[in-house]
C-alpha cells in the first residue's frame, strides 16, 4: 500500500544549521495490520507519519500510496486522499469545542446522511461512549471520552488507513488499553499506523518500526 523510497526531510533547508528529520531510507507497508512506529522524541517518527499521510511533503525521495506518487499530485488531490482514504487521530483530540460529540464525529464525514449518523452511533457504542454523552460538548467529556470521539471521527469514512499520533498520550492505562484494542480490531481489515514512544501499547502490533535519529533502526 505504501512504498517509501529514500525519504529525506530536512528542516531549515536555507540555513547553515540544517536539521535532518528523516535521513533517506526505504520502507514498504502492506494494506492491513497494526503498524507501530516507535522511537524517542526527535527520532523522526511523527515526521514519517505526516509524510505518509500527505500532511508534510518530504524534501527528498518519494512516497507512493496505492500507485499514487505524492509528488506528482496536486494539493486538492492530497486533500481528497486525506478526506476519503485516510483517518487521523492526533495526540490532542482537536475536537471542535462548540460541537457535540456526535457533530464532532460527523464533521469529517464525506456523506452526512442519516446513514452516517447511524454509523457514528455504532462507533460510539463500540467505543463504550454512552448515549447521554453523544449530545455533550468536549468540555463536558473526560479526556478518554474525547479521544474516543476523535477515534470515531477518524473511522467515520471507513478509511483505508488510520494514522494515530500518540493516541494514548493523554489517557490513563485503562483507557489507553481500550483505545489500542479498538485500533487493533480496525486493523484486521485496514491499515493502522500508530506513532508512539510507549512500547507497552504496541503489544498487539503486527509490525513495529523502530526509529532513531531520522533512520529506521530495525
Amino acid at each position, binding site marked *: 500500500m505504501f512504498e517509501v523510497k529514500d525519504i529525506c526531510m530536512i528542516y531549515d533547508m536555507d540555513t547553515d544549521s540544517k536539521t535532518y528529520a528523516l535521513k533517506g531510507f526505504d520502507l514498504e507497508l502492506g494494506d492491513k495490520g497494526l503498524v507501530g512506529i516507535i522511537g524517542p522524541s526527535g527520532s523522526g517518527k511523527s515526521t514519517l507519519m505526516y509524510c505518509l499521510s500527505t*500532511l508534510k511533503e518530504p524534501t527528498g525521495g518519494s512516497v507512493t500510496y496505492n500507485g499514487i506518487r505524492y509528488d506528482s499530485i496536486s494539493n486538492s488531490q492530497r486533500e481528497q486522499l486525506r478526506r476519503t482514504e485516510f483517518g487521523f487521530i492526533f495526540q490532542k483530540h482537536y475536537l471542535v469545542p462548540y460541537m457535540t460529540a456526535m457533530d464532532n464525529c460527523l464533521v469529517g464525514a464525506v456523506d452526512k446522511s442519516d446513514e452516517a449518523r447511524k454509523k457514528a452511533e455504532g462507533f460510539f457504542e463500540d467505543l463504550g461512549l454512552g448515549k447521554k454523552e453523544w449530545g455533550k460538548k468536549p468540555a463536558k467529556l473526560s479526556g478518554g471520552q474525547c479521544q474516543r470521539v476523535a477515534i470515531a471521527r477518524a473511522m467515520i469514512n471507513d478509511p483505508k488507513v488510520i494514522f494515530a499520533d500518540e493516541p494514548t498520550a493523554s489517557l490513563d492505562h485503562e483507557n489507553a488499553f481500550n483505545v489500542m484494542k479498538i485500533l487493533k480490531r480496525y486493523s484486521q481489515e485496514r491499515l493502522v499506523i500508530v506513532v508512539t514512544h510507549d512500547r507497552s501499547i504496541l503489544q498487539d502490533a503486527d509490525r513495529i518500526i523502530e526509529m532513531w535519529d531520522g533512520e529506521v533502526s530495525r
Partner: protein
Amino acid sequence: MSSRLSAWKYVKNNKATVAVLVTALAISFMAMYVVYVLLITTTESFETIMVKMPQRLSYINLGAKAYGLNPDDFDNNDELNAAFEEKREELVNKLKNTKGIEDAFYTQIITSRYQAVMGEFNFEMPLMEADQVQGFLDHMDASITDGKMPKEPGDVLVDETIMKNAGYKIGDWYMEKWFGQTFRITGTMKSDYMVSVGVPNGYTNSGWYIVVYNDENTTDMVGILEDNGITISDEDEVLDAAEYLRNYKELCTDTIDAVISTIFTMIMTFLAILVLVAYVSFLRNRINEYCLYSSIGYSRGDIYKMIVREMLILFGAGTLAGLIISLGCAFLINLSVISPKGLVGHVVYMNQIFAIITTYVFIIGVLQIPVLLSLKKIRTIDAIEE
C-alpha cells in the same frame, strides 16, 4: 465532494456570540432607519408648502423701479404713488388676462408657520375680502371640513394639517404668540396644498402683495413679469415655484441630506470597526478548528465557504431583525409623533432600506480581508503540534 462544512453548527451552538453580533447589526440598522425617518419627515412635510403650493399660488411685491418709474421724475410722493398704483393695477389686469392664470389681485398677506421634527418654516397666507374666499378655495381644490367660512375681519380658515401641527382648535386665536389676539380661527379646511386664508382686519404683518392664482404651466412668474415689461431687481420679491424650490433645496433638503449622511456615516463607521474587531477575534479563536478541517481533508475553499455562509447567516439575521424593529419603530413614530403633529411621514422608505443593506454588503466585503488573512494562517495539525 458532496459534503460541506455546515455554517449552522456554529450559529446553533454559540447563541450568545451570535446574539451579540445580530443585535449590534439590528440596532445599527434601526438607528440609521429611525434617524432617517425623523429627519426625512421634515423634508416631506415641507414639500407640500414649498414645492406643491407654488404650483397654484404665487406672491409678487415689486418696487417702483420694476415698473419703470423713477422717483426723481415726480414732484411729490402722492404723484409717485398714484403712478405706482396705476402701473400695479395695469400689471394685475395683464396677469389676469394671461393664459393659465385664473385670477390676480393686490392684497395683504400674513405669516403662517409649520413646525417639523427638525426646524420650522414660515410661509405666506393671503388675507382677502370674505366674498373672495370661496374663489380661493375653489382654486386650491380646498373644502371646508369643520366650522364656518370667514366672514368678519380677523376671521381665518386654517388647513387641518396646520391645525394639528400647532394644536389649534376652532375658536382659538391664530398665531397668538406673534399676532396677539388678532385672528380668530372660524373653521378648518382640507386641501392638497396646506393653505390657509383669512379676512384682513387692519393688522399688518408681512405687507401687501399681488397674489396670483396660477397653474402648473404658469409657475415661472419672473418670466411672465418680464414678458409684461417688468424689470426684476434685488429689491423686488417674486415668490414663485422657482424661488420656493430654491429655498426648499437650500434650507431643507440640502441641510437634512447632509445631516442624514453625517449620522449615517458615523454609525456605519462605528459599526464597521466594531464588526471588524469582533470578527478578527472571532476568527483568531477558531484558527485551530480551521486547522483541523484542513488536516482531515477540507480545502481552504471549503473553509472559506463555511465562513462566508456563517457571515451571511449573521448579517441576514441582523438585517431581518433590524428591518422588523425599524419598521415597528417607524410605525410607532408615525403614530405617536408624526401623525398627531400633522407632519408627513411614512413607515417604509425603500431607498433607506436599500442604502443600509448596501452598506452591510460593503462591510461583508471589507470583512473578506481578515477572513482571507486568516485562511493564509491555516496550517495542518502537524505544524501546530511541532
